């Protein structure tokens, strides 16, 4: 194996558990400025060991805030308290009174400083226990027996701005979620009532030992995540959507599962115009990944989401350089080929700008822009040329791209061309466009910079929360299984 002298690995910053409960303080301060923050809740940068001069009063005020019910000492445990974002946890509450109504609540403050929450209503059994994996939520932001509902059913707290979305930018730090149990069935006012118990958990996009490496080579800009260990590893070229920027979290997660994954910044990265991004940009990126000393050059995949899928289908079909062992396209389409550059591609789409629809909630529906392709006969990606296994993940309620219709047409074309055996299609009814890693909240409509009109709109992605959550979990498991099947030599 060649020496690793070329790469200066950026080692993982040591993770430190946060001191104090600044989140709880911030929430209470932001939410209810009238609510006096009790002294011993402040972060202990210089903590009073006993609050100066007021010990009895602060205890009395805490008792006043507690409900008039007599108190037990309920125990809330969440296991594991630190995990990858796609790992499941077990929530168990014990020592409640029997047949007691409680609410399980989750709270997250994002990097954008917004607060998101979810909650479920439960009743303890005759032993005073509630088990999240076995018991049904009777209401709240999710219902039924849903172990992870407290994460995927999260939504911005009341009073938040419209159209918010969560996209973790710094993947080397965790998402910190406060899980609490409250007495009674609450649907609001969580910040006004002290919970019976709270547990703090961390959700990580990187497993211990994953390395993050900046890629700035020729004009290619991206980030490479390497799994722990010496390698070599199979590689994945990860293409996000038209939101632009460098979205790292999926690549970080793929590296945590054993794949060297390169997140590529391709939608007019710094110093490049849309005209400069043509097929050769992606070929260069692919070569960088392929030639990396710890990547197995004949165990590669290309993975695309949304606009990234449009690109993936074209480059895999037409490029002489990009010849992966398999590829995955999530909610994409073959109806618009990428054969010149990004600028030309957008111009082609602009021809259909009159097909943009708006619903009663003023949310933009994008799917028809691609569905109705202008020239006759339509120019589509010649999927008959694809020579590697292809997995299409499609959402039944995708309002941004005609993913399902495109998949059906791709199947017909490949049948005709004789390479149908390479195709696998997964369709998820009730799921929207943004199929993210599992346990991510469902974003039905969010703020978006629409390339077509250069306007800031609220774009409708679609989907119903419960079905969408199921789709995210199943699609991720199947994607990992697909990648392992074709990239790990057996």
């Amino acid at each position, binding site marked *: 194996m060649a020496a690793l002298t070329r790469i200066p690995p950026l080692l993982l910053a040591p993770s430190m*558990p946060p001191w104090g409960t600044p989140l709880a303080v911030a929430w209470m301060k932001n939410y209810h400025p009238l609510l006096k923050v009790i002294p011993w809740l402040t972060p202990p940068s210089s903590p009073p060991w006993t609050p100066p001069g007021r*010990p009895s009063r602060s205890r009395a005020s805490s008792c006043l805030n507690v409900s008039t019910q007599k*108190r037990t*000492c309920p125990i809330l445990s969440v296991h594991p*308290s630190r995990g990858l974002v796609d*790992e499941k946890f077990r929530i168990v509450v014990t020592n409640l009174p029997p047949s007691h109504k409680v609410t399980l609540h989750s709270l997250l403050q994002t990097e954008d400083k917004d607060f998101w929450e979810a909650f479920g209503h439960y009743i303890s059994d005759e032993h005073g226990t509630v088990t999240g994996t076995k018991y049904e939520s009777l209401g709240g932001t999710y219902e039924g027996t849903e172990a992870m509902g407290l994460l995927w059913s999260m939504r911005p707290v009341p009073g938040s701005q419209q159209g918010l979305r969560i996209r973790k930018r710094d993947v080397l730090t965790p998402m910190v979620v406060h899980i609490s149990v409250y007495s009674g069935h609450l649907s609001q006012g969580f910040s006004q009532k002290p919970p019976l118990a709270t547990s*703090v958990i961390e959700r*990580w996009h990187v497993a211990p030992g994953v390395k993050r490496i900046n890629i700035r080579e020729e004009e290619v800009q991206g980030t490479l995540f390497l799994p722990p260990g010496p390698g070599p590893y199979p590689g994945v070229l990860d293409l996000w959507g038209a939101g632009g920027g460098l979205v790292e979290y999926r690549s970080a997660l793929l590296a945590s599962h054993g794949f060297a994954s390169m997140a590529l910044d391709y939608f007019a990265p710094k110093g490049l115009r849309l005209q400069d991004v043509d097929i050769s940009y992606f070929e260069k990126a692919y070569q960088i990944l392929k030639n990396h*000393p710890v990547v*197995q050059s004949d165990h590669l995949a290309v993975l695309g989401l949304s606009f990234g899928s449009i690109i993936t289908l074209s480059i895999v079909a037409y490029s002489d350089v990009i010849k992966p062992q398999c590829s995955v396209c999530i909610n994409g389409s073959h109806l618009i080929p990428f054969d010149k550059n990004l600028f030309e591609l957008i111009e082609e789409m602009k021809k259909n700008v009159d097909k943009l629809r708006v619903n009663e909630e003023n949310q933009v529906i994008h799917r028809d822009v691609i569905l109705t392709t202008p020239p006759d006969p339509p120019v589509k990606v010649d999927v008959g040329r694809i020579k590697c296994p292809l997995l299409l993940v499609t959402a039944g309620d995708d309002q941004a791209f005609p993913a399902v219709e495109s998949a059906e047409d791709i199947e017909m074309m490949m049948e005709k061309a004789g390479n149908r055996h390479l195709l696998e299609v997964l369709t998820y009814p009730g799921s929207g466009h943004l199929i993210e890693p599992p346990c991510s909240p469902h974003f039905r409509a969010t703020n978006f910079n629409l390339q077509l009109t250069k306007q800031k709109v609220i774009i409708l992605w679609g989907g119903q929360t419960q079905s969408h959550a199921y789709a995210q979990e199943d699609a991720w498991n199947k994607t990992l299984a697909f990648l392992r099947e074709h990239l790990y030599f057996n």
Partner: protein
Amino acid sequence: MAETDSSPLLSVHPSTCLVDEKFEVEVQHLPADSKITLHALIHSDDGDDWEAFGHYTSDSSGTVKVSRDKSLGGTFEGVEAMALLWSMRPVPESKPGRLFKKKNVQTPVKVVFSVHEGHLAKGFKHRTPLASASAERWYLAPDVQRVEVAERGIKGTLFIPPGSGPFPAVLDLLGGQGGRVEYHSALLASHGYVSLALEYIGLLNAAGKLQHMDNTYFETAFTLLKKHPKVCPDKVAVMGMSFGVPVTLGLTAYSEIMEPKCVICVSGSHIMPLKGSLADVYAALQQNVEKIRYDEKMRIIWRDLLLPIPVDPSKKVEMGKIKCPVLLIAGEDDQNWPASESAEDMKRMMEKAGNAHLLTVLSYPGTGHLIEPPYSPHARFSDFKLLEAKTKVMILWGGETAPHSRAQEESWQKTLAFLEEHLCDSSREVTPC
């Protein structure tokens, strides 16, 4: 230059967790029926390397699962899910007498797992593994607060669970070996108890001389903990080890200030002059100094210094005066304190006095003195700094690795269950704090 060989996949799940949680180690995509060695390495904060390894053979699908498959040799044998941690020992090049103790609880223990071809017993450093994975083991759960305490002469560290509280609490006297031992309190706080790790051995007075803390010191610590706004004042337990045990038992029996809800004593004894203090225990040891024994490698055995268990009741804590539940944990191969014999005598005393229903004894064969949280490496002996003489000696702690590790796992579970039973009100009658 990339290789086209098979690339086995090594996974450790969960890769990040508390030190007392179990994991699953699995290797896939190996050739069928192939010999491999699973190796685990910790580079400790003290700069020592600890390692463990097991020899496995993959099944017909090319998989090795540690919780299911037998290790055929290495630092452990048989089907042992967690032995890659507890059977760890210093690497061959290490200085003798090392002990594994995490001082900085705000960083995790980083464990690096590797898969090597063949059944190796050494030279792991010089070989490239087939695959590697890392795991982080934490003593601290997310958002547990750590507060240094230096008030009214008390020296210690307080750990507070997240949430509004109030919580049950533990006065943690695990520092019976000397110095500030935080990891135990950090772990208790991660399980929902406010825990004060008290430093009480090896403290220097104003003149810079070694001082033995008197009973007032412990009573003050107990009161401070009880009065903390996040603590339920009637739900405070005391847990002691080594020198912490006679102090705990003595104060619980006699002090009007220290009235714990329950008490846990690990690897200690009740031998202490009536209403005495730490200083008296030390004095008793000094008197018997000729009873020090040595094993074949000249390691010091201290257990006889307190033996035989005195018959005279004025030389022991009056166990009959204790009114709260007591959990005693003793290793039958404890070469440092006569924990087992003391436990038996305490049981006899309580049976006579009529309060034996409060007592639970956990006595573990093949187990030594240093009963730590589960999956910590076991050290049968280590070097030790004598406080007064300021010299280093080699002390024999005792225990055989496999039974000692099982005892650590079981006694920790029982400790948590005991604390939960007595500190968390599980009855229908709910008591306000």
